[in-house]
């Protein structure tokens, strides 16, 4: 009757993130709500101008952590479709570095699951951002939290 098979699309990309394909993947008769979060390269931060961001990753581990986070989300909420895409390399201003999408029966769990996934991705998934500023400065951005070992 109701479709129970969860599907996920998890990937690290060298090319631009395609929101249209992500949305098509998320559409399912089982869902009433789809929440999509897209992180984009912002030009200005506290008066400093960013020229571009570049992302590097420990790729096989990043993919495993992304799968583990989707496992956790599926255990907490009735998530029918999940999409986790992260672009690597240079991401110009206003373009997408990350896309998180979930499809659930109702809207509250769509918001909760997508918020959980982006918050956890930013702590757990081994991807790092290098920021190039207009004054020529180029720095590795460090997150605020150490990642946690699972079950700790």
């Amino acid at each position, binding site marked *: 009757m109701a479709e129970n098979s969860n599907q996920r699309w998890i990937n690290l990309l060298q090319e631009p993130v395609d929101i249209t394909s992500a949305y098509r993947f998320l559409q399912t008769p089982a869902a009433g709500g789809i929440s999509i979060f897209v*992180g984009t390269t912002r030009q200005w931060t506290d008066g400093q101008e960013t020229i571009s961001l570049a*992302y*590097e*990753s*420990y790729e*096989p*581990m*990043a993919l*495993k952590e992304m799968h583990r986070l989707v496992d956790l989300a599926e255990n907490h909420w009735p998530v029918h479709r999940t999409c986790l895409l*992260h672009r690597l390399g240079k991401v110009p201003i206003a373009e997408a*570095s*990350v896309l998180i999408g979930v499809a659930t029966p109702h809207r509250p769990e769509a918001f909760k699951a997508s918020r959980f996934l*982006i918050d956890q*991705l*930013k*702590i*757990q*998934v*081994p*991807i*790092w*951002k*290098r920021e190039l500023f207009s004054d020529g400065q180029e720095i*590795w*951005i*460090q*997150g*605020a*939290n*150490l*990642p*946690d*070992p*699972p079950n*700790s």
Partner: protein
Amino acid sequence: MPTSSFKIRLFSVLKSKLKVASIELKTTEEITAGGLMDLACEQYPPMAPYRSIMRLAVNQKYVQDSNRLQDGDEIAIITPVSGG
């Protein structure tokens, strides 16, 4: 115990500071994740300022500093991530 050799992958700021993508450490004693990071900081002083914000990944999973390492483990030092 014979000598164990650990190849440690580096990323982000550590790779930039050391200008290499990995380092190799040898030990003749059993060693924990925390012990290996301490040893890395001794042998590569530019890493030392980052010791308190390092997490070890073993076989592509984060581990507690108290975890014992095995010969042949795939090891990486992870500083706080900033994807997204």
